[in-house]
């Protein structure tokens, strides 16, 4: 029920945006993430972007995963 998936913002008009989810286009609401920009990936939950995915943190976690697995 708390499922959320990555969606790429293609265009923005007011509080609505067109987002791409693996080639499927959908209108989503940016009411909860007003600072989202075109080109951002957001976590999409029931038609609303609930956060902007932080690409730096995503890369950092992958780096950590690699370090941990090598240190084991």
């Amino acid at each position: 029920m708390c499922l959320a998936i990555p969606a790429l913002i293609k265009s923005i008009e007011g509080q609505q945006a067109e987002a791409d989810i693996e080639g499927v286009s959908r209108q989503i609401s940016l009411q909860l993430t007003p600072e989202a920009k075109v080109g951002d990936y957001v976590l999409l939950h029931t038609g609303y972007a609930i956060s902007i995915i932080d690409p730096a943190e995503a890369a950092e976690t992958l780096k950590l995963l690699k370090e941990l697995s090598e240190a084991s």
Partner: protein
Amino acid sequence: MKFVNEYRDPELGRKLLDRIHKRSRKHTRLMEFCGGHTVAIFKHGLRQLLPDNIEMLSGPGCPVCVTAIADLDRAIALARLPGVIITSFGDMVRVPGSHSSLQQVKAEGADVRIVYSVQDALAIARENPDKHIIFIGIGFETTAPTVAASILQAEEEGINNYYVLSLHKICPPIMKALLDLGEVRLSGIICPGHVSTIIGSHPYQFIPDEYGIACAVSGFEPLDMLLAVDMLVNQIETEQPGVEIAYRRGVKPEGNTQAVRLMETVFEVADANWRGIGVVPLSGLQPRAPYDKYDAEKKFEIDPGPTNEPRGCICGSILRGVSTPLDCRLFGTKCTPEHPVGPCMVSAEGSCATYYHYGDDNV
């Protein structure tokens, strides 16, 4: 899918599992609070891959499952009112109430519509100005801000035929209630991912501080979950419980402050009735003034009658982590996804449906 596939690398997963096997020594009992995590654990076979000394329990993190039967009866009673259109997320429609279900009253002529987003409910309200549109508002902190946003949008657009039956629940109070019940002894909790996207990780700090229990917020891919387990093992083995985030691309310690602000603008914290647990003080959300004019409970008079729990169903004790679906006499025989008796078999992320679909040979 970007930000998904990278976290499914089987080679990295194997190495992380090796690391967990080498480092985990104590008997460890972890609860995954969120039903989405239960599904991820089963789907990727993680229970079987973790060391034998790590026991995994499913928690109450499935909004459909924890909806009290009395609240479901109220939704069904609202659906029977003339001039009403009920809008609801799909799973809710199939859960049996005391005497009926939303699906059944729909078959009898009530107007019950499944929506994907509360935006769809607002669209139905715009298209049907002569009807009362009621959204059955279930969900935790992940979903409640979207419903708050819909109420603010209704206010802005002057939509005056839109109402919410707010059955929303919030997570930290129920975690505390479960720990205070003391029925299960936990070493660590895998904290919910997208609830934490909204509320951040700070609200869990009382769990290590007051109960000495380790916490890690996890995402939903196998590597996210293994990283969370690794963090918990480390906290448990070193006896230094804390709150860590294994899902930093989606969760900031402070959460989404805009979403929290909208949620707190529209809703106030109230007591909530949890299936199998009962009324837990200050664990739910109801619309506050002036937004209480959107509160279906205040607008409509209904008499849902006495409640009647299904005989033999043990969803309540499964939600508290005291029993597993395999303890239930109805599981897989009288209760199946096609003919569910209790909510944990209806919801795609209910423990019973997950056990049914993915099996478990390691319990």
